[in-house]
């Protein structure tokens, strides 16, 4: 497999410099754009495997760029945004972004997100391989409808199971409340955000050793949930 191509749309030269060092050091081929307009051109011409975009661009709104890109490609988009702007993150995710990293972030965090994104792109082509999901002591076998924690089978109700498999499907990626409600309960239940929270609590009590300090079922306050993938 050739080196994955990453397009970085970011106006801050310092951040571009740091990401250039990080990403090229990890074997990614990096193309940079300092404006939204240039970024769209880069995405169109470079056929990237991942797009990283800062929401605060000088020329256009990052959200518009995301929507624009989504018009013709499903390339994973990772958003860079500041903490405390949860609403913006949700909007970006709704607009078609796949994941986000809060500034300031460590290199490790961003690389993990990129890996997850690439894995999902690859996974989409051969679905069957994902029948068994494993992380730490948690094992979800969708083929046999079996959930094991530290080799112990855990009994889940149908909704709990559906919730878990939905998270498994997006493993490592953030899943917004809306997305969860839509996928688990159906599009008519998107207003009942507390459903997801209550069932998530049940799930934690069944799967986590310390439900108040979860290892697998992580909360992204104000945005949604993320199933730890590594």
């Amino acid at each position, binding site marked *: 497999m050739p080196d994955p191509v990453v397009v970085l749309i970011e106006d801050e030269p310092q951040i571009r410099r740091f990401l250039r060092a990080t990403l090229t050091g990890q074997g990614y081929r990096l193309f940079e754009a300092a404006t939204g307009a240039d970024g769209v051109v880069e995405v169109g011409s470079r056929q990237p495997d991942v797009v990283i975009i800062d929401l605060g661009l000088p020329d256009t709104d990052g959200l518009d760029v995301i929507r624009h890109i989504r018009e013709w490609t499903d390339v994973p988009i990772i958003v860079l945004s500041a903490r405390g702007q949860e*609403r913006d993150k949700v909007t970006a995710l709704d607009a078609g972004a796949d994941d986000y990293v809060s500034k300031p972030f460590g290199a490790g965090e961003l690389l993990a997100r990129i890996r997850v994104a690439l894995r999902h792109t690859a996974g989409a082509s051969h679905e069957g391989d994902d029948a068994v999901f494993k992380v730490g002591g948690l094992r979800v076998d969708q083929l046999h409808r079996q959930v094991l924690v530290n080799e112990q089978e855990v009994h889940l109700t149908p909704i709990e199971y559906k919730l878990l498999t939905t998270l498994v499907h997006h493993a490592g990626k953030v899943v917004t409340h809306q997305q969860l409600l839509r996928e688990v309960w159906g599009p008519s239940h998107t207003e*009942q955000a507390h459903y997801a929270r*209550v069932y998530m609590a049940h799930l934690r009590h069944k799967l986590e050793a310390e439900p108040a*300090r*979860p290892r697998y079922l*992580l*909360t992204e306050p*104000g945005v949604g949930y993320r199933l730890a993938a590594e």
Partner: protein
Amino acid sequence: MGVAGERPDPDALLARVKDEEARKRRGALKVFFGAAAGVGKTYAMLDAAREQRADGVDVVVGYVETHGRAETDALLAGLEILPARLAEYHGATLREFDLDGALARRPALILVDELAHTNAPGSRHAKRWQDVLELLDAGINVYTTVNVQHLESLNDVVAKITGVVVRETVPDSVLEQADEFELIDLPPDELLERFKDGKVYMPDQAQEAIRNFFRKGNLIALRELALRRTAERVDAQMRVYMHEHAIGKVWPTAERLLVCISPGPDSARLVRAAKRMADRLGAPWVAAYVETPAQLRLPANVRDRVTQTLRLAEQLGAEVVTLPGQKMSEAILAFARDRNVTKIVVGKPRRPLWKRIVIGSIVDALVKGSGDINIEVISGGREDAAPIAPVLRRAIPTDWAPYGWATTVVALASGVAWLTLPFFELADLVMVYLLGIVVVATRYGRGPSLVASVLSVGALDFLFVPPVFTFAVSDVRYVFTFLVMLLVGIVTSNLAARIRMQAEAARQREQRTAALYALSRELASTRGVDELLKIAVRHIGEVFRSPVVVLLPGDAGVLTAWSGSQFAVDANELGVGRWVYEHRQAAGLGTATLPGASALYLPLVAPRGPVGALGIRPADRHALDAPEQLHQLETFANQTALAIERAYLADEAQQAQVRIETERLRNSLLSSVSHDLRTPLATITGAASTILESGERLDARTRHELLESIREEADRLNRLVQNLLEMTRLESGALQLSKEWHPLEEVIGAALSRLGKRLADRRVDTRVPPDLPLVPIDDVLVEQVLVNLLDNAIKYTPSASPIRIMATATDEAVTVEVADRGPGLPRGEEDKVFEKFYRGQPTGGRGAGLGLAICQGIVKAHGGHIWAQNLPEGGVAFLFTLPLAGKPPASVPADA
């Protein structure tokens, strides 16, 4: 020299300096003063105006009446003349001075003839001199003319000399404001000559009266009055000059005059005499009216006269007081002593001689008790004082019922006497009647009891005294019995009536005091202008049974009706209110200014200046004419004004406090931020430059340590910036809660995972009961609270000590506790820690002291509260509540 008393009094000097400053802003007033019509005042005025114009002054003729005299008309030529205002009155068109036009034109100098003129009804002011005062207030210089007979204080003297009562008068105080006073003098012979030639015109007077007026004797006397008046003025100027330059002893003694106003018809005269006396002495003077219980029962027209006399005194420059008291002499003397009065002026007693011998006279009582105060008795004499502003009053219909009751009581007494006749003597029956008289006197007052007395005597004579059933009397001794009975009846009536009146007076006073007390007490316990006004409007509305409006200046100083007002004001009424507010004088219904308004407007004046105006629209136009009512309304207005000002002051004080606080915060923020930003920056710069410059020579471990510290310090910077942003958001009010129902456990979990590595080796004991209800919170913010509390616990306790997080629920709220086992808080600082920039003694790491303040802000935004308490087993617990407000969400459908 060297005698302190001869030096100019600094206070007085200051007052004069202020006076002069006020004068500079005010327009200057020049009065052309004459002894009589026809001396040439208007001519002199126009002449002077022409000179001014020649000097380039912007002169406008506001209003001049030339009465068709050719030489005067000639002087008008070439001067700009302000068009007259045409006022319709009873079908006639009157030409009036156009005040608004003059104010709009704003010349430097304006000529307004006939200062004493009475304006047509419907004008803004009743009198032209009020127009002139407004012009002066607006900074316009005014030339005007006035004759000596129009001077308020000389009005009575002139009437006496000439036999012509002049009804148009000008208060002396207006003339005293004049900067220049020019006497236009013409010898009586020449004036008579002019009169014979038909060159003198006197308005509003019958020809006969004018002929009587223009007699040589009169003219000489008037000329003398005018000359003397001018001389007094020059004298006063001289005194001011001397005083200013500390020349000699100016005031012979600190004289202070007090004039007693009685309800009698001669009191106006007395007031004028006192004014002249005070002027001669150069002394301040007070006009005092003693309100005894008996005077509360005086007929309305007499009380109106008192009110008018008091108004007159006020116009003449007196300080006016109303003293409550049982005895006039005592009240006067007590007040006089209190105020260091040196001379009391009273009218000659009017009581008949026998009464004076029996009861004594006020003058006698005053003289007896006066000590070193001089008593000046001025001869009485009636005058028909022109009403200053006629006070209209309804005729109160006599109530006949008490008289009916008096008759009934006498009939009853007769019945009782008839029944008991067989057992008693005639003398005893007299007692029965007397009892009846006493009953009537105590219940119905003097009139009915007098009737009862007379009826009783008649009934006794007719029914019991032989020969029975005739009014004839057989024995002369009975006549004596009747006389004594009648006298006893009259005396009893008087006594009982007096008691009733006193009780009534006391009740009225009590009522007034109680109403005022109720108002001021409620005002005192209230904050905020709106609340204060609500109370004031309610009280005033109730006490005076009339709707009330309050006009307040808005941001641009434009007067608008307060929203809680009880009636709407149109633009015209608002104009009246504005005038009242600007001139700090009452106007509207029942006053001399803008009497056409539908409501009476009083200024709300507080010590620092006017705060607004109060309007009251009585259902009955005359409800507020009684002096007590008006006086009480003024007191209410004053209380309200004071309360409003107090509220404004409190607001200002608070704003000042906020400004100081903000300033203090800014300073500590700067010092704190500059320190807290620089420290990590210094570390980062240092470590990074070390690696850059000597990277090769460093071993791997040192290099890693340096890099590690760069990252840690960067984290710290991030937290600091985050906190600053959060604080700014909280304080700017931009914080918007997006509340949803959350399981608390999840939020705690998010906080713990955010702290991640920093918590690494800590034991965190989380106790969240499984049945804890969902809480309505903004999870991002509450997570921030938990992160800050945990961060604090990490910072201020040893690295191995455990942390406990606990949640408990009641029906109303969930309480969350974050406890550590560290050193705890210093005693008494449990509250201080929530203040911004408060910092404990950290055992490791530092912060800007914002964390807990942010926690407090967030918890408060959720409607909860946060507090800290040291734990008995050591360490400190931070607790906060999150109310379970609102409708909990629909329960989650179970699935099998």
